């Protein structure tokens, strides 16, 4: 499966904190330009896998390759360089609280480009318009609503024109209408810019709506128990836990994925 169209290749990845293994033996490929979902119940380690992908947590085993290059075997400088091609939207938005929305989007540009302030300003306004933030551009993050914070977070993730976007629970904590709007926005942006998206979520609606492919992580066995598009998983997956999750039922087997 190592063809040109593979953007990200994860092989036998194990992640954990100290002695505690959160997920092990996870392998998957993400095709260029696709929206890939990392699914699973709460507390199964989706976000931990994502932290390994974006370079915040060194995996205990396995490899993560962007193109031909193994991310974690590279030097720290090279990792930073590869990481510059990533845009990350954190679960809480994680806007820098001492700056306005516009300054949040501008900071990466000021840090890593030699553009003059007029150009930066134009780019920032464009990104904020793309995500539909018409008011509150000069407000501090604390005075923005949850949906607006996510939008600014998305605009910031797009600030350096990334070729990969990592989204951690983009629709968590949003009302159904805002969540739907954000989903549509992700679809538009990713098709428009040709960005490859890896998305962590347990929001069924958005998974079924936007994802082309995915992987299902289980909290009890600590590994991936299903691969494929969410729609296909819903239509027919032999695994009772995946079936129950995708159809919002109580699992038929005891000890299925539940937890904090």
């Amino acid at each position, binding site marked *: 499966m190592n063809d040109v169209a593979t953007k990200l290749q994860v092989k036998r990845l194990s992640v954990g904190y100290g002695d505690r293994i959160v997920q092990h033996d996870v392998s998957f490929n993400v095709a260029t330009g696709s929206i890939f979902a990392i699914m699973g119940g709460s507390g199964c380690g989706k976000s931990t896998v994502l932290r390994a992908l974006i*370079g915040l947590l060194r995996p205990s085993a396995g490899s993560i390759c962007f193109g031909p290059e193994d991310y974690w075997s590279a030097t720290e400088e090279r990792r930073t360089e590869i990481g510059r091609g990533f845009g990350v939207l*954190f679960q809480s938005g994680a806007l*820098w*609280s001492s700056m306005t929305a516009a300054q949040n989007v501008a*900071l990466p540009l000021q840090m*890593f480009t030699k553009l003059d302030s007029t150009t930066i300003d134009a780019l920032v306004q464009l990104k904020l318009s793309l995500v539909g933030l018409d008011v509150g551009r000069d407000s501090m993050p604390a005075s923005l609503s949850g949906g607006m914070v996510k939008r600014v977070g998305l605009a910031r993730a797009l600030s350096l024109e990334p070729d990969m976007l990592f989204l951690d629970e983009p629709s968590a904590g949003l009302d159904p209408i805002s969540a739907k709007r954000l989903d549509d926005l992700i679809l538009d942006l990713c098709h428009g810019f040709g960005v490859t998206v890896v998305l962590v979520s347990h929001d069924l609606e958005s998974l079924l709506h936007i994802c082309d492919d995915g992987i299902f992580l289980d909290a009890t066995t600590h590994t991936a128990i299903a691969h494929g598009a969410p729609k296909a998983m819903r239509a027919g997956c032999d695994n009772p836990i995946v079936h129950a999750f995708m159809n919002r039922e109580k699992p038929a087997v005891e000890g299925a994925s539940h937890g904090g």
Partner: protein
Amino acid sequence: MVSLEGDWLVGDTYVDRGVSRLLHDNARPSGIGFDTHGLGHWDSTLLVFLSQLRQASAQYKIDFDETGLPSSTRRLLDLLPVQEVLAAPDIHKSSIAESVGVRIIGVWAEVIAVTTLVGETTLATASVLRGRTRMRSMDLLTCMQEAGLEALAIVTVVNVLIGAILAFVGAIELQRFGAAVYVANLVGIAVVREMAAVMTAIVMSGRTGGAYAAQIATMQGSEEIDALSSFGIPLLDYLILTRVLALVSMMPILYLYGSAVGILGGFVVAVAMLNVSATIFMTQVAGAVSVTEVCFGLAKSIAFGSLIAIASCRVGLKAGRSAADVGRAATKAVVVGIVGVIALDAVFAVCANTLDF
């Protein structure tokens, strides 16, 4: 048949009353059923009783028939496990030798981390001086305002009072020898050499050091630090350097200001209460305080400033992600700051004594 009557609410006598009497006696029933005609209001208390009863029935193989219970009670009872859930046994028990070893390795790792941080900050400061940095000047100015201008009031109050107290304490002894005029020398030397630098550092440790640690720890909790790392924005340039430079540049200024107002405090007491003339006081101070003394104080204040700033940034970066961790980080930063300042002052005192000035 168990007949449940009256109200079963939290705050009534504890419910264990029934279970042991019912089942642990020799004459155990073969089955348990319920009659709830007399049951009034109930809450979790009833569920605790029923759950215990059910567990005991399972243990003694007694038929537990819940059909007589109200349907809402049955539904809640279904959520509870029939067998008591056993806590997972703690497999790994470390020996004393192991935990001491882990501690020592931890301390050593911390020493290396702090040394690295100090080294990197020094190198980064050097590149700032050469005009090459990614630090935002706006952030530096904000930090300088917080650590400088906004701290003036408390620095004034503390130092004026310290100067006044020194004058009082000195006056009691000196007046007995008719040497009240030497209060000026006492206040001048004590304030310039020791008190202004140390007191200002202690104030700044509580005020600014605690704030730095809490700010950085909060950023840790709200994923802001992760966001910086994911962009590859160096934490050193963005978070630490601004704070260290702000405090290091403001501390000497605050020290000079603190010395001035400290002497002023002594002056007021000496002139108003000890009848020392203003001119004589000033002449005495000028004679007692040399440039070396001021330089010594300045050097100390710079050292204290870097100590407080680096220690509190390090504490903030090491903090956990919860609200309680922010509190702990702030406390730890203040404690480390104050103890560190006093310990460092002792080192300065020993050095000064050895070098004879």
